[in-house]
């Protein structure tokens, strides 16, 4: 055993991409059933941060059949997210998480499409305005 190395601080020595690249054999997300509460699972997401943790936890809080959802990042230097989800038993926590992710993907997809549409409209409108302004100048 190394005497002084604290595994919590391994990132101080490791290259920066350790923050977002899974090592060989690492799994993005693992589920562990939490026995302290009914219908509860702890999910560990490796190489993730508040971006996903907060997003999924907040989304789950509003989901049907989900009693409780929360996440923590145990240490800011350690890129691991712990997500705990409790459901009412009609669905498993895993199903709840998968469903939340699917809905979020769809929501982002819709956001992207709406954005693309609105942005294109806006560009056309701006061009129209420019053309108008030039036309007016020409008729002076």
């Amino acid at each position, binding site marked *: 055993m190394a005497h002084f190395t604290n595994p919590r601080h391994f990132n101080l020595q490791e290259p920066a991409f350790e923050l977002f690249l*899974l090592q060989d054999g690492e799994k993005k997300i693992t589920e562990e059933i939490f026995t302290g509460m009914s219908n509860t699972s702890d999910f560990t997401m490796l190489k993730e941060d508040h971006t*996903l943790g907060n997003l999924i936890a907040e989304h789950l809080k509003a989901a*049907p059949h989900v009693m409780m959802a929360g996440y923590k990042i145990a240490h800011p230097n350690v890129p691991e997210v712990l997500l705990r989800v409790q459901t009412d038993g009609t669905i498993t926590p895993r199903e709840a998480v998968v469903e939340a992710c699917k*809905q979020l*993907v769809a929501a*982002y997809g819709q956001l992207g499409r709406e954005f693309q549409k609105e942005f294109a409209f806006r560009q056309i409108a701006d061009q129209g305005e420019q053309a108008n302004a030039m036309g007016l100048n020409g008729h002076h």
Partner: protein
Amino acid sequence: MMNSLRRVMQAEVPTLAIDLIEVEENSSSMADEVISHRLGLIPLNSVDLESVLYSRDCDCEQYCENCSVKLTLHVKCTSEENMNVYARDLIVDPNRPNQTVGVPVITDPEGNGCLIAKLNRGQEINLACIAKKGIAKEHAKWMATTAIGFEYDPHNNLRHTDLWYEKNAKAEWYVSHNAKYEEPVAEGTPFDYDAPPKRIYMRVESTGQIPPDQIVQEGIKVMQQKLAGLIHSLIDDDQGGDANTGYNGPQSPEYGGGDGGSAWGGGAPGDGFTTPYNTGGNQSSWGGAGAGGGTTPYGTTPYGSSGQSGWQ
């Protein structure tokens, strides 16, 4: 959801930046390291980055034409006066993944680009740079955005902030430029402490490598890939995945990293599943209360405490 998007646009939208430098000759007053650092920060065109591989995913030994762009800089001051070295002096090697990628971004009216160094008479810089694809989580030089403005509720109707004041908060605080899109709540209206924010304003400022609208789209894509990765990982645990999940797309370490043709590409209408959110028009999933019909509690706010009612 929008905050995640903001975080992703800042930290995880890939761009191209100079990562390796071989210094042949440097007789300038600046150390090799200083020049290298300055070169790393120069924005390079990254619009068409799909065809550029990450060096770590590439088959090559260290770097090659599929995963890097080579730029060379060879300048020498021969005149009496000091000479400025600009980003326009970088020569891009034509052997690169596509013909737009890697060109230094030059937006100033003189067409100079960033100032790299100043040379005195007789001083010379001769070096070769390798630009690679990366994300800002690894190093800030890969950031696609300079700043993202993020705001909701410009009139503070929801009272999520407490405005400090000497005498009168209204008179002493500037109204943001987003305020014109919303009405301040009328005096004397009963306060709905549980109202969710309905509109979020974002102002995306690009470094010039990718236009801002494309950064938004890229950010959305990265988010979807992240979420898809989770779904994959979770469904794989369920033994091969159910046939009806529709998530059996190609499984590369980077979902959709290829030509954007994966199921998660984010462009195609009809993502293969329906969501209660899609009925809500152009509102975000948190926006429209009850957008998905009476049974869904998604209209409740993450900020309020009344979510209980929706949880049966």
